């Protein structure tokens, strides 16, 4: 038995879910559609054209912003995921009362409103005399990447059979080799989704970035915000559509690779 109920039996669930998906994707459709607008104003359709894509590719400020954002997101999600991975392993080893405390503490970046974090972090960096730039951006992003990365890694760890680690030890694995040969491969699905989640969140952050970014580190959201200030042009849509394409490609790839790795 599959243990699955027939949802047709739950009144309204199916239609509501379909509506929700339509709701989620309508704006994306608009973003993509208007990226092909030949006119300069997002909302006024003036015909099909690829000019905005050409402009994306030609404009170095767009490229720079994308590049900064990607570098920050890669660095912060990598650092955040690594810290979260270690933390997840450490939390498992904690006594019962310790672990919820640690988890709660590591989740504080989720709980402190962004604006507070932004202002506080900037002032803090200034106090410490840190020069604002890539480093400060990565530091600030890493902080809020940790709780996002921690979530799926812990979930993965919880669903693992702890006996697998014991089996490895029983078969002669210890220390770093145990970590590399067993722990790491077992946690890969959790690590990948944690890193992806952290990556998205980092890529999308505006407020904190706006405060801690330095002279040469305008991120894409900061740049886009500026563009919108000035009057949005379909350039924004073209940038977003390209990013979306890359995203879907990456996600598809990770889904496919995840599939053959996935036990059972």
């Amino acid at each position, binding site marked *: 038995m599959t243990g699955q109920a027939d949802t047709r039996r739950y009144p309204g669930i199916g239609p*509501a879910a379909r509506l*929700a998906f339509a709701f989620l994707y309508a704006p994306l459709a608009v973003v993509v559609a208007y990226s092909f607008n030949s006119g300069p104003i*997002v909302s006024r359709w003036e015909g099909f054209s690829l000019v905005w894509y050409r402009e994306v590719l030609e404009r170095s400020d767009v490229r720079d912003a994308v590049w900064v954002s990607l570098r920050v997101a890669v660095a912060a999600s990598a650092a955040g995921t690594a810290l979260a991975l*270690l*933390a997840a392993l450490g939390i498992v080893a904690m006594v019962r009362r310790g672990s919820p405390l640690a988890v709660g503490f590591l989740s504080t970046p989720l709980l402190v409103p962004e*604006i*507070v974090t932004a202002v*506080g972090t900037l002032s*803090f960096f200034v106090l410490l005399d840190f020069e604002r730039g890539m480093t400060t951006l990565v530091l600030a992003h890493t902080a809020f990447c*940790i709780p996002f990365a921690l979530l799926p890694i812990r979930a993965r760890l919880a669903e693992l059979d702890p006996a697998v680690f014991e089996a490895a030890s029983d078969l002669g694995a210890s220390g770093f080799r145990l970590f590399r040969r067993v722990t790491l491969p077992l946690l890969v699905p959790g690590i990948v989704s944690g890193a992806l989640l952290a990556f998205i969140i980092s890529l999308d952050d505006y407020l904190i970035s706006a405060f801690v970014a330095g002279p040469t580190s305008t991120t894409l959201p900061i740049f886009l915000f500026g563009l919108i200030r000035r009057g949005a042009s379909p350039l924004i849509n073209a940038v977003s559509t390209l990013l979306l394409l890359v995203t879907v490609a990456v996600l598809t790839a990770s889904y496919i690779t995840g599939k053959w790795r996935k036990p059972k």
Partner: protein
Amino acid sequence: MRVGTRWLASPALGFIAFMVGGPMVVIVWYSLRTRGPGGVGVGDGLTVDAYERLVVTEDFAGNVGFDSTYLEVMWSSILLAAATMLVALAVGFPTAVWISNRPRHLQPLLVLAVTIPFWTSILVRTYAWIVILRETGPLASGFDAVGIDLPRMLNTRGATLVGMVYTFLPFMVLPIYAAAERFDHRIAEAGLDLGATPAVVLRKIVWPSVRPGVVAGCLLVFIPAIGAFLQPELLGGGRSLMIANLIQQQFGASRNWPFGSALAILLLVVVTVVLVVARRAAREARVVLS
């Protein structure tokens, strides 16, 4: 058997202590200072003026008294967050349950599908809503074509809510899905078998079973929603000031850093209270379920 020692958590704990603790201490410190010269930064003196300004004012006629202007901003942020949470729940609950009822191999794809919109900048997504909702936009034109005249949508509270729900919906769907995925559908069948109609099963069996997910989802939506500012600005016509804007304003045009810090602390206190209350609710849910 341990796969590591608890010391492995210390780098992350240390980092968070540094990156969250540090700024928080600075904020508290700022809130207790006098204003800097010209209102820029903070000065050297110590004062609780900033906190006083939260509730006391000298009005334009010169009377000193209780003033709720700023507290009202806080309150309307809370209301907006609550409304967002409720609507997101109304949309997210069926969605999560529906996904958990799809064939196993489709579920991860559908969950992914919920998160894909996240990959475009929140600004762009919100902007797309402006395009959709404006009077000359596709929605209005579509209805217009079939002879239905929609009321104005953009720059209304409704539009704000749409944008907020849109932004935070995945935070609601994912935890509820996590709970629903673990839900044993056989107990729903037991309900049917015992004479409960599907609607009753949904209400009396599915709902309480996924409640921990609901609590988690509500928190994950409510808390960041209190600090939201983009959607009321861009979609709501900017006519209702939110606490985040107010804080930003203090660090910007109003040049009152101590007051901005005090507002930030007020916001933190509100969030903490919510968490404490919700923790109790979450614990209840856990006790009943385990």
